[in-house]
């Protein structure tokens, strides 16, 4: 571990500096862990892991209680049950089953990565995008309409694919910018507008598909609440044989597209002037305005991009070619839209982290369905367990803060122990809480993320 005492910081102290106290290096026995904890990123990862473990523990307790009280379930099944959930696709049975489930899991992760990115980007700008489900629906509709409308053969099918994808993205962008617009110009809370646009989207999509009738609705099969698969029109995401490799699953390259977008987003947020502005607006919109940034434009842009991301996720899902899209969406909003929120929270709004947290959520989800298939627990138990684990993802911020607090306490203890012993390593100054009336006005407008 890095010895904090090595930090080549000058220990200045002179007249005008106030409240200066060295924090002695705690390099000794406890040094390793606590100096590791000092890294913000490490704390985020630990917090997320702790949350997941907590969720698993509570999920296990639920299983245990159920097995005790339900007559047809033995207590032993609680243990095998939690193992099945944790096994994800690997508890799927034979090797081929495992491959099949793994392939599907990776395919299904792509839309979730996209909605996770959507929520995470909004968090970075200090906005709460709970409108991802609506943006997702608009994206699905846009992609499906274009993919099924352009006659096969008139242009190469990959061109149709790209056009369909872009149409979905543009629709999502427009949909996302609506709450952004209201927030920027009328200061209407984006959560309210997002929720309304969700249901408007759900009804608009149902209405448009119903109005177009059997042009898009799949009536060949007896059920009539699904839209035709895009493969009917020869449009499907490239697989490069991945589907064959994974036991004829749905696996295609969408997860790689989503991951590439995540990396691009990471670069945009952290390396560009645009990302710098977005974050500044998120952290402190007053200071952004003071510095001449157009905070209204940035809010709308952030929401538009968030909408585009969620819609892109929907397009990736629909354009796989073998997915049934249920068109009477006014009944329920897509779960992947909402699940973007725990994905972003679990990832601490880091775009790269979103890739992993989305895959993890899908992994547990597959484990959940295996639970229902392989034990006497009924099919309602598995979503419950998955929900408990997702629920705990929301605690990551709390755990992160607790870790930081713990760290401070340790620093104080070490401080007291060797008040003169170790050479001072770093100079730490606390905020002036005495005179500065300016400190009374604190910005509280923040998203869930505080990196």
């Amino acid at each position, binding site marked *: 571990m890095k010895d904090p005492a090595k930090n080549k910081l000058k220990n200045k102290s002179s007249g005008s500096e*106030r409240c200066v106290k060295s924090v002695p290096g705690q390099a000794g026995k406890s040094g390793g862990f606590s100096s590791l904890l000092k890294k913000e990123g490490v704390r985020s990862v630990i917090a997320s892991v702790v949350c997941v473990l907590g969720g698993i523990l509570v999920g296990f307790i639920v299983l245990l209680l159920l097995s005790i009280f339900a007559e047809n379930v033995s207590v032993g099944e609680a243990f095998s049950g939690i193992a099945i959930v944790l096994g994800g696709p690997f508890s799927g049975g034979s090797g081929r089953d495992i491959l099949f489930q793994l392939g599907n899991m990776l395919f299904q992760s792509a839309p979730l990565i996209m909605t996770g990115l959507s929520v995470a980007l909004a968090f970075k700008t200090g906005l709460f995008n709970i409108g991802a489900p609506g943006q997702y629906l608009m994206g699905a509709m846009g992609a499906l309409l274009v993919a099924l409308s352009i006659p096969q053969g008139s242009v190469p099918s990959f061109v149709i694919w790209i056009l369909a994808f872009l149409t979905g993205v543009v629709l999502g962008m427009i949909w996302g910018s609506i709450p952004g617009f209201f927030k920027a110009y009328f200061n209407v809370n984006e959560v309210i507008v997002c929720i309304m646009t969700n249901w408007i989207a759900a009804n608009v999509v149902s209405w448009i598909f119903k109005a177009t009738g059997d042009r898009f609705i799949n009536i060949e099969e007896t059920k009539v609440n699904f839209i035709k698969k895009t493969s009917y029109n020869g449009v499907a995401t490239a697989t490069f044989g991945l589907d064959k490799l994974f036991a004829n699953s749905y696996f295609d390259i969408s997860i790689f597209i989503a991951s590439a977008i995540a990396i691009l987003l990471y670069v945009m947020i952290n390396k560009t002037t645009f990302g710098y502005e977005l*974050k500044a607006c998120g952290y402190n919109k007053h*200071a952004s*305005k003071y510095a001449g940034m*157009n905070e209204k434009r940035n809010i709308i842009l952030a929401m538009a991009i968030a909408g585009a991301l969620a819609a892109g996720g929907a397009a990736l899902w629909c354009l796989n070619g073998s997915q049934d899209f249920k068109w009477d969406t006014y009944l329920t909003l897509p779960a992947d839209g909402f699940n973007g929120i725990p994905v972003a929270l679990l990832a601490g709004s880091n775009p790269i982290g979103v890739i992993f947290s989305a895959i993890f959520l899908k992994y547990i989800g597959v484990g959940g369905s295996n639970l229902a298939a392989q034990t006497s627990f009924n099919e309602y138990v598995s979503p419950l367990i998955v929900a408990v684990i997702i629920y705990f993802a929301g605690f990551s911020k709390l755990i992160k803060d607790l870790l930081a607090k713990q760290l*401070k306490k340790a620093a104080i203890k070490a401080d007291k122990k060797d008040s003169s012993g170790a050479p001072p390593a770093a*100079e*730490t100054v606390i*905020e002036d809480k005495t005179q500065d009336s300016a400190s009374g006005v604190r910005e509280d407008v923040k998203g869930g993320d505080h990196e």
Partner: protein
Amino acid sequence: MNENENNAASPYVIEMRHITKIFPGIVANDDITLCLKRGEIHALLGENGAGKSTLMSVLFGLYQPEEGEIYKDGKKVVINDPNDANALGIGMVHQHFKLVDVFTVLDNIILGIEPNTLGFLRKKEARKKVLELSKNYGLNVDPDAKVENITVGMQQRTEILKMLYRDNEILIFDEPTAVLTPQEITELMQIMKGLAREGKSILFISHKLNEIMEVADRCTVLRKGKYVGTVNISETTKEALSEMMVGRNVKFAVDKAPSNPGAEVLRVDHLTVRSKTHKKNAVNDVSFTVREGEIVCIAGIDGNGQTELVNAITGLEKPEPGSALFFCGEDVTHKSIRYKINSGMSHIPEDRHKHGLVLDYSLEENLVLERYFEDEFQSHGFIQFGKVRDYAEKLIDGYDVRSGQGPVTLARSMSGGNQQKAIIARELDKKHKLLVAVQPTRGLDVGAIEFVHEQIVASRDAGSAVLLVSLELDEVMNLSDRILVMYEGEIVGEFKPAETTVQELGLYMAGAKKQTQKGENA
């Protein structure tokens, strides 16, 4: 002075012995001992963050010390919260008053200990006691006026009455003069002396040396959380105190050559800004100019439209129709903030946490807050972090901005003084023709104030125009080349610092006098 000494063995009414209070990463009070004699006014002097307020918060029960004991009349006491402090007769007037605006003075005074019969208030009794107290101590208040309608001075007297009503013997004043006009300060000094004569013991937190010299009997000096010493005021001088406080000699007067104004840089023409809080205009038909190489200072009591005036000039607020703003001859009334920044307007904002800094950004990111988009720091939309780092290091060196980890320190974790230095570095290093500085030294200690003043004068000498808004009359007198007094949104007087006095300015600031508007525009 200690007539009442017979009612206890100890000569001290309060003894705080070897108090140590630790916050994460910092020892705010390190083995501090403070003894308060009965009936004395004891000043507590120190720079920002020297630990004055922390020490008083320990006495008032807001913080628990890690080490050390507190004795009242020679008996050891433990003060867990302000209620304990109250029970021991310790009262505090906070820097920002804790009053309910929509209640009357009387209601505020009895709040929390309302005399009642079965839940029904008995206000008559309370009123009698309040009137008696205000007569005895010369605290002129109207018990039936609502707090929102009375002056800051009367609000402060209400706070004092609150303490007296609770029969407090030990009165803590946390920077009581920060919000007052010179006349009100004189009045407060008289009141404090009166209270001490009546046997109350007073702890008086301040970093204003003049006031301490005038009113205090003894003074305890803290520096960086450590005890420096306790001196009798009659045996010391202002210079000696400041040296104890800062640890070196400090210049009080600002060295500056006479100003040599050049071309007009800023012209404010019939500017009107609507108020967000009341029906009257916050700024009402204000006109003035600022020229190259001069420091024009807007003096006034807080809340008389200075904030709105500056916001309208810098673009944070929109002026009403009919207002006009010329910057270097160009009409910029409706130009964007960025346009103004790029054409050479620098702004040291009043509220450094709200406007001046993105607290969750690092120091280097904050130093390019207005320049990140310039070709120097970006190429093709990508920020050149290497160049940002070099630039930040240059400013940190040049302006002596101190922080834990240099350029990558989170702004939030920096001290108030260094945050301010960072803003000043950013605003002054940027090419500018006009510097708008609003209370640039607020909350800073003498050492930092000296530095800020030097920088502002240097900026003026380099040819830029400076518009300074300050609530501190000393600063106004020291720094400005021309003074405009603002009262209720209007310019009520224009002065040269050499031709006026603090007292005269005070009268204009309080609205007691008004010059007829000088017609620089037809």
